[in-house]
């Protein structure tokens, strides 16, 4: 299990086999550059393996808690990822349906009203099976909890948020 601060490292490892996206095809291009500018002005750039300032990958982040969503967005922008962040899973799904080829990975909370992370993962994999999916939760991850999910839902990883019970 990984906490939120180490997530960019985990995601980078998970995507290590993938080719870097050289073309900014998504509307979040600006977010990426804003993130880079913040890094340059506020602190030494820590992303030594991405010196050419090209985005590592395009991520879809979904969490109904706006604070968590913002923390994740900032963390990934800092690490030179392109990110699209949503607090409403329905909107996230709509966006993914229109831009599924742009994304490499979705990071989603599990317990969200409307569409749970588990259902969202299922739909994302149906639309584009190449997209990696990481689910995260503030709740204790119980072994039996996910026995009901598999094998109908393919998930590439689980993350325990650190501010849990």
């Amino acid at each position, binding site marked *: 299990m990984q906490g939120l601060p180490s997530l960019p490292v985990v995601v980078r490892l998970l995507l290590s086999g993938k080719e870097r996206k050289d073309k900014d095809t998504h509307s979040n291009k600006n977010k990426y550059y804003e993130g880079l500018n913040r890094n340059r002005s506020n602190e030494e750039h820590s992303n030594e393996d991405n010196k050419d300032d090209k985005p590592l990958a395009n991520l879809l982040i979904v969490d*109904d808690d706006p604070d968590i969503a913002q923390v994740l967005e900032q963390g990934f922008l800092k690490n030179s990822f392109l990110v699209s962040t949503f607090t409403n899973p*329905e909107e996230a799904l709509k966006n993914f349906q229109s831009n599924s080829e742009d994304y490499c990975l979705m990071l989603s909370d*599990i*317990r*969200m*009203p*409307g569409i*749970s992370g*588990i*259902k969202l993962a299922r739909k994302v994999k149906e639309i584009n099976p190449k997209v990696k999916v990481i689910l995260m939760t*503030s*709740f204790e991850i119980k072994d*039996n*909890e996910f026995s*009901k*999910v598999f094998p109908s839902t393919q998930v590439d990883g689980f993350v325990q948020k650190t501010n*849990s*019970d």
Partner: protein
Amino acid sequence: MRMTSAGSHRIESVMQWFEDGMEEGENGILVYPNMQTFREIYMQYAKDQLVAREEQKENEDNNNDDYHDNNNRHKEQLLMPRIILIATFYDTVNAVKHNLSAVGVDVQSHIDDGSLLIVDAYDGYYPNINGMKMLVKSLSDRARKEGRIGVSVISNMGFFFLYDGDGDASELISYETSLPSKTDGGNVRGLSCYHTRDYENLDDSQKKELDTQGQKKSLEVTESAAYVAFDA
């Protein structure tokens, strides 16, 4: 469906509906528009039931004539408040404890004296779908033994939307319809709480089945602060 203007007293209207509109032994349905509203509901209810009673009891102990009540049953109820069960799903148990503390509820002491129970709804419904019912039954029995007036259950039903595929609400409907709208002689007031985004996943016939063809009392709190809508 009736619309009642509630203005800034929206949560108070919900409390009134739960306290006065629902009798002992009844199970009802509440649809809330967002998490903040759901939090306000359980926070206000716990505060009213636990903190306000404590203050009232203190006043009685001090022989304050304004609060004095010769009704023995009333005194007993002050000594032994209802048991409140909050089954949370979208917030963690710790988050609920934190929220309750923020409105002045001494969470740990009420947990210790058996007046308050906060559980992860997931554990109540999985792996045994009837786990929550068994828990409520045991609380109901304990309330009788301890001379409490009863048990209030505020249960978030988000669990039933965690796994089911599109349009499949059979498990939820089967569970909800197994909860009778009214149990004669019962001492439990149960509230099944649905986030509106979950509830809107159900079609009209499923919604109808959910409230046992209109037999259950149901309340829909709207996004607008101005109105509380409810079925009569």
